[in-house]
């Protein structure tokens, strides 16, 4: 395996973890976040989030900046791009499609609920 392939392989194993992907998702959504904020949005403890952030940091996927007593984490886009050109692209594509399914289904469900209310009001 070439050094580049080995590196990609390692990045792969870093982003293959579902919790770490969710950490990356939240960071993508929020721009930046502290470990406490991340723990509030994910079903894991702050300690677990801190461990995942350390792994992501070592892989160069996130960077941290200290502001007073807070440490804020943000995605490093170029590095994430390299790590995820294959996998996260497919994952992101599915996320986009799932979001679209959600949008459509919820709009259909709302229309059906309105229709039911109208029917009941007529009775």
């Amino acid at each position: 395996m070439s050094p580049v392939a080995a590196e990609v392989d390692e990045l792969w194993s870093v982003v293959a973890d579902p919790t770490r992907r969710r950490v990356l998702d939240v960071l993508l959504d929020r721009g930046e976040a502290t470990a406490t904020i991340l723990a509030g949005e994910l079903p894991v403890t702050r300690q677990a989030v801190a461990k995942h952030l350390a792994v992501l940091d070592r892989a160069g996927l996130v960077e941290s900046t200290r502001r007073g007593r807070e440490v804020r984490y943000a995605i490093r886009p170029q590095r994430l791009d390299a790590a995820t050109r294959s996998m996260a692209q497919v994952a992101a594509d599915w996320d986009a499609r799932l979001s679209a399914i959600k949008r459509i289904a919820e709009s259909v469900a709302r229309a059906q609920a309105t229709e039911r209310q109208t029917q009941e009001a007529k009775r």
Partner: protein
Amino acid sequence: MVPPRIEREIVIDAPVEVVWSVVTEPEHISGWFSDSADLDLRPGGRAVLHWNDYGTVQGRVERVERPHFFSFRWAVDPGRDVDEGNSTLVEFSLRAEHDSTRLTVVETGFQGLAGADNEKQQHFDSHSRGWELELGELGEYVARRTPTPGDG
């Protein structure tokens, strides 16, 4: 390295039956997936997904268990018929949670694509590339949504 498995999920504030129809009915599929779609919703049924900018991709329905499970294979390249060596498997699971639905999608089979590893990677890349048209390159996507004070 060829990735073994992609799994994503979302919770939708709609009943399972509604989500099922959005996932499986061509008129809805063209709202979240391809620009137009044709689907014979039974095992072995033919699926045709067409993107105006990409071409037509053949698919084959695998399992249909209304309203909880739906799977299909799709070819990695436009214009080719589906077989095990040139397609990946997409599985949708729908689970009711109170009045909502948890929708999970799993895509597998990248490693089963015919050819050498680098060719599989190319297939993988090309497979994802077709679908990134609506989303743009991930780098742009990330850059757009991520402030990068250190880079500016």
